[in-house]
């Protein structure tokens, strides 16, 4: 069960802009969610008022602006739901539920934090950085993309004081190669107190192995197809590392400690 009664209703779109060739940021006026939300939580948005596509689409909170009463999501257009969302216009009445899930745990020693992001996995890190930085932590963000078109957020994160190191296989980033190679190199050079990772399954799996080897506690933000996002359907599972049963990503996660998750699982 979610910790807090989530808001379920309408929020007005105050901005919906393309920030990279396939990446958009949607900002919604929804004081209820902005007030309650924590970094790492998500919102579940209906892409259509009709029955197709039927299910809501989950997105991490990419901005939480309590003062303005707004939240944002940073999303990549990958299919018909995100395509429809990219058509939302100013003033659009957006049907959403949130905040949902458990966010990042920020009460552990975190003076020197490490973010590892793969592709759209960058989305939840800005609000997390805001909180950690307010607490005088230093943050290094390793950010892997396939190509320059996939880059987003870099200047925003740098502006608030995050050290961003980009990795890409096409050579567009600081580091030429996979973000997990960059991670291995970084862990050899520097000690961190807490790690946070978000990105594709394989990347998270490799990140877990590297961080555990380096004795770095790691939280991972996971994804799954979701039918409800509320713990009703039990459909959004990932196996626990106990080898016995399952986490439900929408309520137990999306953020879990890496050591609790069995990444050997496939969809």
């Amino acid at each position, binding site marked *: 069960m*979610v910790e807090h*009664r989530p808001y*379920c209703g309408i929020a007005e779109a105050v901005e919906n802009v393309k920030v990279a060739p396939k990446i958009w940021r949607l900002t919604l006026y929804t004081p209820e969610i902005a007030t309650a939300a924590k970094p790492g939580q998500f919102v579940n948005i209906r892409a259509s008022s009709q029955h197709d596509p039927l299910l809501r689409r989950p997105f991490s909170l990419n901005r939480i602006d309590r003062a303005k009463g707004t939240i944002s999501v940073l999303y990549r257009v990958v299919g018909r739901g995100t395509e429809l969302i990219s058509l939302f216009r100013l003033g659009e009445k957006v049907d959403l539920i949130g905040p949902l899930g458990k966010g990042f745990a920020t009460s552990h020693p975190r003076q020197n934090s490490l973010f590892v992001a793969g592709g759209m996995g960058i989305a939840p890190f800005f609000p997390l950085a805001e909180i950690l930085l307010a607490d005088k932590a230093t943050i290094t963000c390793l950010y892997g993309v396939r190509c320059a078109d996939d880059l987003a957020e870099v200047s925003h994160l740098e502006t608030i004081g995050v050290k961003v190191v980009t990795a890409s296989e096409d050579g567009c980033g600081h580091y030429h190669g996979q973000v997990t190679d960059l991670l291995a190199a970084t862990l050899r050079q520097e000690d961190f107190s807490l790690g946070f990772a978000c990105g594709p399954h394989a990347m998270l799996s490799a990140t877990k192995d590297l961080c555990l080897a380096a004795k770095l506690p790691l939280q991972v933000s996971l994804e799954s*197809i979701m*039918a409800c996002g509320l713990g*009703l359907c039990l459909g959004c599972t990932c196996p626990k590392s106990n080898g016995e049963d399952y986490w439900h990503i929408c309520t137990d996660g999306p953020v879990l400690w890496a050591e609790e998750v069995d990444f050997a699982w496939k*969809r």
Partner: protein
Amino acid sequence: MEKINPLATSLAGLSLSSPLVTASGTCGYARELSQFFDLGMLGAIVVKGITLAPRTGNPGTRLIETPAGLINSIGLENPGVEKFISGEMPFLRQQHAPVIVNISGNTEEEYAALAARLDKVAGVSALEVNISCPNVKTGGMAFGACTIAASRVTTLVRQHSQLPLIVKLSPNVTDIAAIARAVEDAGADAISLINTLLGMAIDIETRRPILRGTFGGLSGPAIKPVALRMVYQVFRAVKIPVIGMGGISTWQDAAEFILAGATAVGIGTASMVNPLAIPTIHQGLQAYATRQGVRNIAELRGMAHQ
């Protein structure tokens, strides 16, 4: 003077404050939905399917979105009957709605054992015998696919329980009316239908079925026309009340099921998409009853047959 409630109805000896019930497996054990609305407006809480032993459910992908539908392959994940009684019943007993426990067995004996175990549990108002789950290897739907097996399970559960007995039918059959008559004859007090339609999807890149178990259960608006037809057919075939479900997402849908003959209607997939679906339908049905000039919604039951 108390305001009369145009949605109050009764079913198999239970008084329901409305015809709206949760569809099993789409609202867990009601805790989550209780955050969104007062469960008192529910005619009954039908909980997620319970088995004798705990089940972790199916591995791999469990959900596939389809046009206006959803395929699920949860595999009856549940804590088992003992933990259900100790862990969930205390909360459920505090809600102002009868609790109907949905039970599933791999064998006839398991159904019997579940029925016996739940018989005297405080707060359990009725059993819904699921002979229609497409997502478990043994048992499940096999019991719902032929009149003899359906009737045997019903008889057995009847022998082991004093509770009102609702049998939940599978739609994946040639003659739903025959199965309904068989379970009525075997002692069922009510029938619920439909469970999910058997469906599948294939990943065209890996070329493999998306679900590890190949097939899953199709629910949601896509199946409404089939569900409504079966409720209509079963209403003509039996005398016991029918709980209709399958794709209901608006009050208009609920009204169609009542006109087709449903005494109560289950809301499943719609609550997952919109946790406020039930209160919205509740309000719409109330207004509809008034507009239709009936004092109670039950007056509209089965009217489409006239």
